[in-house]
């Protein structure tokens, strides 16, 4: 740490939940945090955003599950995970014992699934809040995710907010695969979302020129990585411009502190580092350091001063 970066106040919040760092893992990109322990000080992260959990254990989709694409990748995991029982018995206590805040991503196929998950997570030690994954493209209905329909998205968010611990902020994770992301953002905010996570992956497809068939077992997959970053920054910008009071957790292709800075300037008060972790398992800690240096170099004394600065 240099004197330069310690000078910047990097504290922020997800809704009412304070964060020591604005840099978090991204759902689906760091499992439940345990595997990163050799590489980063997990307790120094803003939070570990867990892989999306559902009510029951899920196998996920058959392989092949990924394809490398220019500055990105396509994945079709299908939300493989232990289910809420497994999470409550294993992963969440592991994080809590180490003082690592958990932002738990929840997913389901019915509104009631989301509400039940939120209820099961009430008062669980170490659970800072909930990210409601209404936008995973790797679900049975594919393009027809909740987040593509303001009404369906609002129903989920409203049910989760009603069932969740009042002390746990509820963030809705939005899809960029919509005509007007601001209308979805407004709808879920009015339905009770304490904040917005933007963006989930974009639905994509890669065909193998040798087999002349889709590469992924699931045919389509979610595109992530630096290739999607301008789309993500645009979404954050548009939503912050329309709803400046709604906190945003920004993600989508963040690889460096300067990438994170773009999200902050566009209006994000915290960021998740996702696919970059596959490339560099210590990326979260590095992005925090680089962001602090970048803020200091631009004369900011706190992260909060920089949030939305590009609009001013």
């Amino acid at each position, binding site marked *: 740490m240099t004197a330069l970066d310690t000078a910047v106040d990097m504290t922020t919040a997800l809704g009412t939940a304070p964060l020591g760092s604005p840099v978090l893992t991204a759902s689906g990109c760091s499992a439940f945090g345990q595997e990163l322990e050799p590489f980063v000080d997990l307790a120094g992260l803003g939070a570990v955003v867990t892989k999306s959990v559902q009510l029951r254990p899920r196998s996920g989709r058959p392989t092949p599950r*990924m394809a490398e694409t220019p500055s990105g990748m396509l*994945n079709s995991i*299908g939300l493989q995970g232990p289910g809420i029982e497994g999470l409550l018995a294993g992963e969440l206590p592991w994080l809590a014992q180490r003082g690592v805040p958990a932002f738990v991503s929840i997913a389901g196929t019915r509104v009631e699934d989301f509400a039940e998950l939120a209820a099961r997570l009430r008062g669980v030690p170490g659970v800072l809040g909930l990210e409601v994954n209404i936008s995973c493209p790797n679900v049975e209905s594919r393009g027809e995710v909740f987040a593509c329909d303001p009404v369906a998205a609002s129903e989920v968010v409203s049910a989760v907010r009603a069932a969740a611990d009042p002390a746990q902020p509820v963030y809705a994770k939005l899809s960029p695969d919509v005509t007007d992301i601001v209308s979805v953002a407004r709808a879920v905010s009015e339905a009770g979302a304490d904040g917005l996570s933007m963006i989930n992956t974009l639905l994509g497809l890669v065909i193998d020129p040798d087999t002349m068939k889709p590469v992924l077992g699931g045919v389509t997959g979610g595109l992530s990585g630096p290739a999607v970053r301008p789309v993500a920054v645009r979404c954050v910008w548009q939503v912050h411009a329309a709803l400046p009071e709604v906190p945003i957790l920004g993600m989508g292709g963040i690889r460096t502190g300067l990438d994170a800075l773009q999200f902050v300037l566009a209006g994000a008060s915290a960021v998740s580092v996702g696919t970059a972790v596959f490339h560099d398992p210590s990326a979260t800690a590095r992005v925090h350091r680089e962001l602090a240096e970048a803020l200091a170099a631009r004369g900011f004394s706190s992260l909060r001063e920089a949030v939305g600065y590009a609009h001013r």
Partner: protein
Amino acid sequence: MTSYLTEPAAPAAQPPVQREVAVLAARPVGAYVELTLAAPEIADRAQPGQFVAFAVGGPMTAHLLRRSIAIAGVDAGPGAGTVTVVVAPHGPGSTWLAQRRVGDAVDVVGPLGRPFPLPDPGVPALLVGGGYGAAALVGLASLLRARGSRVLAVTGAADAARLCSVAELGEVADVVAVTTDDGSAGRPGRVTVAVAELIGEAGIAYACGPMPMLRAVADAATAAGVPSYVAVEESMACGIGVCMTCVLPVVGEDGLTRFSRSCTEGPVFGGDRVRFADVGALPWDVVGADAMGVVAP
């Protein structure tokens, strides 16, 4: 419940590290390039069967996914601290790696994955390597030999240029059988011919190479009542257990099949526990398949 000849491989004793390391030597070997890296912390920790994961293309690369490659050799002696890998250039990432020269720096994470479980001292072992997969068996051969095992090695490839580590295995193994599909070196044909002849002399079998070969070796060993361990080469994005892309249907200790990560739960699996016929499918009896809408017929 079916009984199994193998126990699942245990996790490694020590966690991995991430380091930027220098290339000490780059040597063409047939169709491959052998890279020796100055990586003392990885060398100290590595056990046979483990692998390392490379970032490729430099800091601003458009190829974000790590390239996972088996550790072919380790020199952990004082003043040494080197790790050797054999790179098979086939895509842009592995080609970039194969083009590294002495003095270049590479970002590497390792050692990763579970090492090969070892038999009781003195148990004779059959080691089968396909293509550059043979490199992953050299350290194991030395270790088994040091523990008093008779080591029978079989190495095969499509052609002579794709054979690997024949000399290295020859230095430590009691027997080295070589096969090539085109007959350009050793006996013409697949490794299975040699495996069939040698499996009766072995108390345990190990294999590393392409999936069809692993399946053939595991089947031959299981049929002969010999426990086998295979090191798989699944496509991995991260190598450290967070991306969930490298899963295979593997039968656990409790007899249930799960989609298991080849990186953290492998790459070494009991040969009789990998459901080779179901790779790339979602059988109904995989834990959590019901939640995907796949039900018992």
